[in-house]
C-alpha cells in the first residue's frame, strides 16, 4: 500500500461522496421542508441513469444525454408530485413510506417494461475514456475527474442558490420553521413543487453521471437510497451544508473501508478470519459512523431546525 494507492482511493471516495451529495441534497430538502419521507427518490436516480444511457447510446453525445435525462426526470417528477406527493405533505411519515414504496414498485415495473430486465451497459464518453496523469506516476481515469468537477460545481451552485437568492431564502425559511414561513406569507405550494423538481434534477444528474461507472439496472435506486438516507441523517435532516459534509464523510469512510480495511486486517489477523471480517466491516463502516454520530448528536451534525 503506497502513497499513490492511498491518494487514488481518496479521490475515488471524493467522487462517490459528491455523487451521494447530489442525491442526498434533494432528499434532505424534500424531507426538511416538506416533512416528507420520499423513498422513491432512488427511482428518480434510476430514471436519470436509464435515460442518459439510452440517449448516449443512440446519439453519441454525452452532454446531450445528461441534459435529456435531467429534463425527462424533472418532467416525471412534476407529474408524480402533482398526482401523489402533493397529497402526502401533511400525512404521517409511515403513510408516506407506504405510498412512496408503492411508487418504487410501479417505477421498477415501468423500467422493466420499457428497457427490459437485463442491465444496460453505459459507456463512458469517448473523449474521456482514457486516463490522465495527475502528476508523475499517477494516472487517474479522466471520467472520474469529470465526476468530481461536476459534483463540486453543482455543490457550489446549490450553495449560491440556497444562500444568495430569494427562492433560496424561502427554502431555508421553510426548512427551519415551515409554519412560521407560512404565516409570513410564503406560498409554500410553489416552493414545495420547486424543491421537489430541484431534487429530481439533482438525482437525475447523479444517475446520468454514475451510469458509466456503475450497473444501470432495476433496483439501483433502492441500493443508493440507503446510503443517501444515512447521509441526510448524519448531516441533520433539512441541512444542505450538513448533507455536503456528511456525503463526503460517508463517501470517504465507505471507499476507505473497502480499500484499506481488508489489507489492514490481513496484517494483524489469521487470513481465514480476515477474509470473512474485512468485507463485513467495510460494508458496516458507514452505519457505525451513523450510529456514532446519532449517539453524540441525536439530530445530526448540522441540525436545520433550531
Amino acid at each position, binding site marked *: 500500500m503506497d502513497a499513490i494507492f492511498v491518494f487514488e482511493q481518496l479521490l475515488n471516495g471524493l467522487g462517490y461522496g459528491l455523487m451521494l451529495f447530489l442525491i442526498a441534497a434533494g432528499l434532505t430538502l424534500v*424531507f426538511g421542508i416538506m416533512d416528507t*419521507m420520499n*423513498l422513491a427518490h432512488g427511482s428518480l436516480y434510476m430514471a436519470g441513469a436509464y435515460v442518459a444511457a439510452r440517449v448516449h447510446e443512440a446519439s453519441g453525445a454525452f452532454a446531450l444525454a445528461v441534459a435529456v435525462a435531467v429534463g425527462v426526470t424533472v418532467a416525471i417528477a412534476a407529474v408524480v408530485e402533482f398526482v*401523489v406527493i402533493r*397529497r*402526502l405533505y401533511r*400525512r404521517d*411519515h*409511515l*403513510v408516506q*413510506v*407506504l*405510498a412512496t*414504496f*408503492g*411508487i*418504487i*414498485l*410501479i417505477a*421498477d*415495473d*415501468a423500467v*422493466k*417494461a420499457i428497457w427490459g430486465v437485463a442491465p444496460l451497459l453505459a459507456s463512458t464518453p469517448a473523449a474521456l475514456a482514457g486516463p490522465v496523469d495527475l502528476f508523475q506516476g499517477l494516472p487517474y481515469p479522466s471520467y472520474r475527474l469529470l465526476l468530481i468537477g461536476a459534483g463540486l460545481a453543482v455543490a457550489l451552485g446549490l450553495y449560491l442558490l440556497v444562500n444568495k437568492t430569494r427562492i433560496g431564502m424561502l427554502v431555508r425559511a421553510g426548512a427551519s420553521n415551515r409554519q412560521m414561513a407560512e404565516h409570513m406569507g410564503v406560498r409554500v405550494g410553489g416552493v414545495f413543487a420547486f424543491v421537489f423538481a430541484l431534487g429530481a434534477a439533482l438525482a437525475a444528474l447523479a444517475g446520468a453521471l454514475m451510469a458509466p461507472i456503475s450497473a444501470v439496472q432495476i433496483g439501483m435506486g*433502492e441500493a443508493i437510497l*440507503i446510503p443517501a*438516507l*444515512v447521509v441526510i*441523517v448524519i448531516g441533520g*435532516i433539512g441541512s444542505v451544508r450538513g448533507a455536503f459534509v456528511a456525503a463526503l464523510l460517508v463517501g470517504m469512510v465507505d471507499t476507505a473501508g473497502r480499500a484499506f480495511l481488508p489489507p489492514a486486517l490481513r496484517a494483524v489477523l489469521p487470513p481465514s478470519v480476515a*477474509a*470473512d*471480517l*474485512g*468485507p*463485513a466491516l467495510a*460494508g*458496516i463502516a458507514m*452505519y*457505525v459512523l*451513523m*450510529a456514532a454520530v*446519532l*449517539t453524540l448528536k*441525536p*439530530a445530526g451534525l448540522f441540525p436545520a431546525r433550531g
Partner: protein
Amino acid sequence: MLEPTSQGASSAPGAAAAVTHARFPGLARRLPWLVLALLAAFPLLAPAFGLEYYVGFVRRVLIVAIAATSLNFILGYGGMAALGHAGFIGVGAYTVVALVEAGFSSAWLAWGSAALVAGLAAAAIGAVSLRTRGVYFIMITLAFAQMLYYLAVSLRTWGGDDGYGLYTPLELGAWLDGAHAQVFYWVVLVIAAAVFALFSRVAHSRYGHALRGIRDNEMRMVALGYPVYGLKLAGFVAAGAVAGLAGGLLASHNAFVSPSIMHWTQSALLLVMVMLGGAGRRWGAPLGVALWLTLEEVLKLYTDYWHWPLGLLLLLVVFHAPQGVAALLERRGGREGAR
C-alpha cells in the same frame, strides 16, 4: 379465507362489534376458531381440489404472519416504527444454520434458540435505538439491520452471499416425524395461532394499555410514573424474539437461508404488509400478509409485471383506507349494523 377473517375483524371493541354481537350472538367469538379449523383442515382437503401446491404457500403465509404480528405489536400498539424487523428474522434463520452446522438436529432446540438469540439481539439493538425518536428511530433500526445483513454476506462458513442449504429436515421428535407428510404445516399453524392469541391477549392487558398510552402520549406516561423506556424495550425484545422464531421456521420452510431474507426491502415489505392490513388492529397483520402474498401469487400466474398493481394498491390504501384493510372492514360492518 379472507372472507371469514373479515367478519372476525368486527370483533374488535367498538360500536360495530357490539352490533355484530347483537345480530350474530357468539359469531364474532367463534370466528377465530372457525378460521383455525379451516386452516387445520386445509392440507387434508387440498388434494381433493388439486391444490397441494398451495399447502406450502399457506405455510409461508402463516410464517410471515407470525413475524408481521410481532411487528404489528410494536408498531401498532407501541408506536415504534422499526424498519429493521427482517434483521431479527435473519438472526433466527442463521441461528438455525449455526446449530445445524454444529451438528444439532432437533427442531425445537433450533427454533427455541432462534427466538432466544433474536431476543438478545433485539435487547442490544433496542437499548440503543429506543433512545432516538421518530425518523431517527426508523433510520437507526434500519442501520442495525443493514449491519446484520453485511455480517451475513461476509460469513463464508455459513454460505456468505450464496446462502446455506439445509439438506436434511430438522427432527420434530419421536412420533411427529413421518406421522404425515404435512406435519410441519400443522406445527407452524399451532405456533402461529399461539403467537396470534398471545399478542391479542397482551394487547388488551394492563401492559398493552400502557404501551398504547406511550404511543399516544409518551410525555404524559412519563409524568404518570410509568417506566416508559423499560416498557418499550420489553415490547421490542418480545417482538424481536418472535420474529426470530419466524426466521427459524422460515429456514426450515425454505430449507435454505441467504442474506437476502434480511435485506432492507424485506423489512420495508413487512412494514407495508402490516400497514396494508391495519397497524394496531387485531387482525391487521394476518390480513395484510394474506392479502399481499395472495395477490403476489395470483398476479405472478398471469404476468411478469406483478409489482405495479401492488404499488397501485398501496396508493389506493393510502388515499382511501389509511387505517388499513381491517379498519375498512370494521367500518363497513358498522354501517351494515346501523341500517
